[in-house]
Structures are given as C-alpha cells and as structure tokens.
C-alpha cells in the first residue's frame, strides 16, 4: 500500500511539475571560493565570472558556490559536498586547493574539476591560470617612470612562484627605465587582512616608497597610499574608488569568458582535461584604464601592452641575471619557458630582499 502510494505521488509529481523535472536536468556547476565574495578582490572577480556564466547559460545550468572555504583538509570536504549535491563540473579557485581537488577528482572519475593556478592535473581535472606577470611588467614600467624617490613598495602575500614571478617582472621592467630602481618587499604572509595590508603599506611609505604595488587582496593599501598622497596599483579588481587620484592601473581578473567556454564544452560533451594559461592575448585578464599619469607614460604603457599582446615583447626575455649574479638558463629560446616562470623560485639581480626559505 505504502509503496503504491509513493509511486503514485512520484508519478503525480513527474506529470504535474514539468519545470521541476527540467530543473533536475540542468547541468550543475559548483564553485569553491577561498574568501568572501565581498572581498573586492580575488573571490569577488571569480564570482563576477560565475555571474557572467549564469547570464549567458542560465537556462541550461544551475550554479552553487561555497565561500570562505579554508585551504587544507576542510577544502576536501567542501569539494566532496559539491560532488554529492550533484555538481558535474566544479571550479576550485585557489592555489591551496590543489591537493584536495586532485584527491576528490581521483575518487569521482565521472565528475569534472577545474583548479585555478595549480599545476597538478588528472584526466578529469584541468588547470587554468593567467599570465599576470605580463601585467606586472607593464606596471613595473609605469612605476619606474612615476616614482620620484626611486623606491617602489611591494606587498607580497606568500613567496609562491606566481608572486615571485610578478616581483621579478616588475623589477625587470623598472630597470629598463631606471637601472638604480629599488623594489622594497614586505611579505604580509596572508592573502587577506586589511589591517595588516594597511600596516605594510604604511611601513613601505614611511621607508621612502612612493609607488605601492600589492599582491594581496583588499583595497587597504590603495587607501593608505591615497591618504598619504602617493600612487598605487590595484589588484585583481578595479580599485579606483578607493584612490581616485591614486590608482595608476590594476590587473583585472576576467574569468567570465573562460567559465562560459568550459561550461559550453561540458554541455556539448567535449570537455577534456587541459592546462590553460592565458595572457593578454586571451580573455583571462585585462588592464584597468591607465590613470593619474602623464600622457607619455600612458602611451608607453599602452605600447607595451600592445607589444606583449602581439607577442613581440616577452617580460622574461633573455639574458636574465639572477640575484647571485649568474645568468639564468634560457630554456624557451630567447625567453624563459613557461615551466621556469610557473616554478620561479629565484629573484633577479637588483632585488635586495632575500627570498624566504632560500
């Protein structure tokens, strides 16, 4: 009796509620965020990408996101939770999720995973990232032109290759303008702590820096620079609101087109494991308008951007001399190859700082 009643109810539901049935057919796409979506930086931009995805393919897909997921064992549980909830394509958007994502990917071979900024892949796990060092190179040129004191302040998060390659690209560019330029580095050892980022910016300015660059996520440094009448670059997102007379430009992460492309592939059944590392010639990131600088500096920046986009200018063009004064092996012909940049664990000549752990 009970069984037939259940069957009847199920039948009624199926017949009577077509929209619910089609909702179940929608492809479920999951996102794991390391910060809050309101961080105005890294996670905020990933969520803008997700929103673009919903706008484009909202009738065919359903998205779920988990925010503030700590890197480490908690991440594994969160990713698995998304799998159990029926998500077939899952984007994990922080470097520290790499091992957790791989572990879950091996456990669920029928679910597809996309890990941002990592290097470990699996037949059902892709990686994607952007060549932000290209943007850093342009910023290095601008910084050297705009700095009167010849000291550029740089707030680092963690000494991982992505951050180190950004510092090196900045230095190499700045040296082409001013061979004596100094890049002062302070590691905050966090991605997100507005107070600490502000303190680091204050320390750099107090020590003579007049252009501030950051590889941390909040607009705190921009605001301090603005308060002190210095210049600064935004990070991940448009931060000009926090320094209308301060922001020179900002590297804008634009994940939307990539997310749309990958989800379309998943819908068409053509998704396969890939390694995407897009530069200025792709849609992975963009530069915010060049502001608060004279026209000739602006033109220089635009020219450099055009040259990098066209592949005529490579930020890591050989010869490159390491901090120890020895030339770095040139594996990519006339420039460093992708592997050398992705695994960068040395400073170029001219940087005073000692790489932590070296």
């Amino acid at each position, binding site marked *: 009796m009970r069984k037939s009643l259940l069957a009847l109810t199920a039948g009624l539901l199926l017949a009577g509620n077509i929209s619910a049935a089609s909702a179940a057919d929608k492809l479920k796409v999951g996102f794991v965020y390391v*910060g*809050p979506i*309101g*961080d*105005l930086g890294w996670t905020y931009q990933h969520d803008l990408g997700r929103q673009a995805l919903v706008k484009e393919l909202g009738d065919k897909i359903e998205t779920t996101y988990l925010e*503030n997921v700590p890197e480490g064992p908690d991440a594994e549980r969160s990713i698995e939770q998304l799998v159990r909830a029926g998500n077939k394509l899952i984007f994990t958007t922080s470097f520290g999720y790499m091992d957790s994502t791989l572990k879950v990917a091996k456990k669920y071979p029928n679910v597809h995973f996309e890990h941002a900024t990592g290097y470990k892949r699996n037949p059902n796990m892709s990686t994607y990232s952007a060549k932000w060092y290209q943007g850093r190179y342009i910023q290095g040129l601008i910084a050297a032109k705009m700095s009167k004191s010849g000291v550029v*302040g740089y707030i*680092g998060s963690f*000494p991982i290759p992505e951050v180190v390659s950004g510092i090196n690209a900045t230095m190499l560019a700045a040296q082409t303008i001013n061979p004596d330029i100094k890049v*002062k*580095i*302070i*590691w*905050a*050892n*966090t991605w*997100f*702590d*507005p*107070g*600490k*980022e*502000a*303190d*680091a910016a*204050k*320390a*750099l300015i*107090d*020590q003579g820096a007049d252009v501030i660059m950051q590889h941390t996520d*909040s*607009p*705190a440094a921009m*605001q301090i620079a603005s308060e002190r009448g210095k210049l600064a670059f935004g990070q991940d997102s448009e931060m000009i*609101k*926090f320094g209308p007379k301060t922001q020179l430009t900002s590297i804008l992460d634009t994940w939307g087109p990539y997310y749309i492309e990958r989800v379309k592939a998943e819908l068409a059944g053509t998704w396969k494991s890939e390694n995407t590392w897009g530069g200025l010639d792709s849609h992975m990131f963009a530069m915010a308008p060049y502001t608060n600088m004279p026209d000739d500096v602006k033109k220089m920046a635009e020219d450099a951007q055009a040259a990098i986009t066209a592949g005529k200018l490579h930020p890591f063009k050989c010869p490159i001399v390491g901090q120890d004064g020895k030339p770095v092996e040139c594996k990519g012909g006339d420039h460093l190859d992708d592997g050398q940049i992705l695994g960068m664990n040395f400073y170029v000549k001219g940087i*005073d*700082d*000692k790489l*932590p*752990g070296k």
Partner: protein
Amino acid sequence: MELVEAIILAVLAASTPLLIAATGELVTERSGVLNLGVEGMMIVGAACGFAGAWLTGSIFIGALFGMVAGTLMSLIFALMALGLAVNQVATGLALTILGVGLSGLIGAGFVGERITPAMHLHIPVLTDIPLIGRVLFGEDGFVYFSVALIVGVWWFLYRTRAGLILRACGDNHASAHALGYPVLRIRTFAVMFGGACAGLAGAYLPLAYTPFFVPGMTAGRGWIALALVVFSSWRPGRLVVGAYLFGAVTILQLHAQGWGVGIPSQFMSALPYLATVLVLVLLSRARSGGSTAPAALGTVFVPDR
C-alpha cells in the same frame, strides 16, 4: 626621527582594537564567564559600525552602533550560557560562527562603499612637537578612549566595592550567591560590557583603521584579544603591556622586512605571537607563581532557589 614617530603611530593604531576587545573580555572573564565569541561580536560590530557611520555620516554614531551590536550579540550568549546554563565554550564558538555569517549579511549592501575616517585630534603647537606631538596629541578618539577604558577597568576592579563583588563571582560563585549577591545578573552585565567593547573594537576597524567594510576584516583579532587576556593572567596592567607589545612587534617586523634584514618572513610574521607569549609568561612567573585564573572561570552556575 620622523620614522620613529611614524612607527609609534602605526603601533598605536594596530594595538588599539586588541586592547579594547581584550579589556572587555577581561571583565567578562573576571566575573567567571568564558565568552569565546569575541571574534563574532567584533565582526558584527564592524559591519554595524560601518553601516551606522555610512547612513548617518557620523563616526560617533557608527561607534555607538558597533557597541550596541556587540552588546546584542553578547545578550544571545548570556541567554544561552547564563540563562539556560549551556556549555560556555560551545556557546562562544557558536557565537563566533553566527557573527561571521551575520556580519556578511548586514554588510553585504555596504561592500565597496567608503567613508571619511575618524578625525585625528589637532591642537596647534602641541600636536606639532616633534616625535611625541602627534603620538600624544594627534590620535583619533578611539585611541584616547581605549586608554581611559583600561584605566577605568583597573580602578573599577581593584578600587571599588562593585569590582570586588564582580571578582568574587568569578572566584567562587557559590559563596557570592550565599552572601546574597545576584551572581547571574552581575555576570550578565559583565558579558554585556565585554560585548560592547568587542563591538567597539570591531567598529574601530572600518571607522578608523581601514575606512571600508569587507566581510571577515577582523581577520582573527578577536582570537588574539582572547589570548592576550589569558597570557596577561587576567591583570589590566599586563594586558596593556601585552596589547602594545603585540602591536609593536607586528609593525616592527614589517619595517624589518622593508629594511631587508634577511630573516625569513614566515618567522617574522610569527614573532608577535612568540614575543607576546614569552614576555607575559615571564612577567607572571616573576611576580606570582601558579595560575591566577578566576577560579570559577567557565563553570556553569545554577542558583538553588
């Protein structure tokens, strides 16, 4: 010289939220209640403080909003842990989780907005004295208030009858009850005071420190405040030492990195914690051996009627 002044100013700014939040928690714990929800109350105070300042254009009203929000959060704790005698540790942790979520909800509409930060005092001549002028006469209201607050709390705890009764509740609630003191009511007030301080400390962040709101901007400061209370062995004087020492080492390690002293930055980042723990432990060893925790700290009290 200018650099020294700049460093001192940065140290005071970094220490103030810790000092305010820890002062509140010290009073709460002295009454025998362990409220681990400081981080949660702080972040709600930050969201409401920013909301208040943004809506009214007044930093003062923003600070009041933060204090009221922190107090309301602490009342949830008081209801559960004192009224219903639920485990204090669990309730405090739950309060933090609640606070983090709630602040994201309250603050969602304010993300990306900015306000004019709290004004700094300026007295002609006095503020312009080199080295100490801006440190003594050029701070924002929060800094002066935090100093008044800890002095006031010291005076209250050790120089007033009410303070003695509050400490009695924390050391032996059964005796205090037997003497006819309303233990639960006194503890509720102590919890509310702690909540108001945590809310104010949270509000300090978006109103004076970094004048914008983002979720999670307290970034663990509530936990540091809690630790400071323990390591200062529940003494206001040592709490001041601990809070300023923590702030000082935090700022100095950033400067040391900028100067390029060549010590790994991971170690430098851990230094504030190491130095503070070390100094406060040495201080309490030198003065009085043994634990000085309020004897009834964290224990449930259900009065027999």
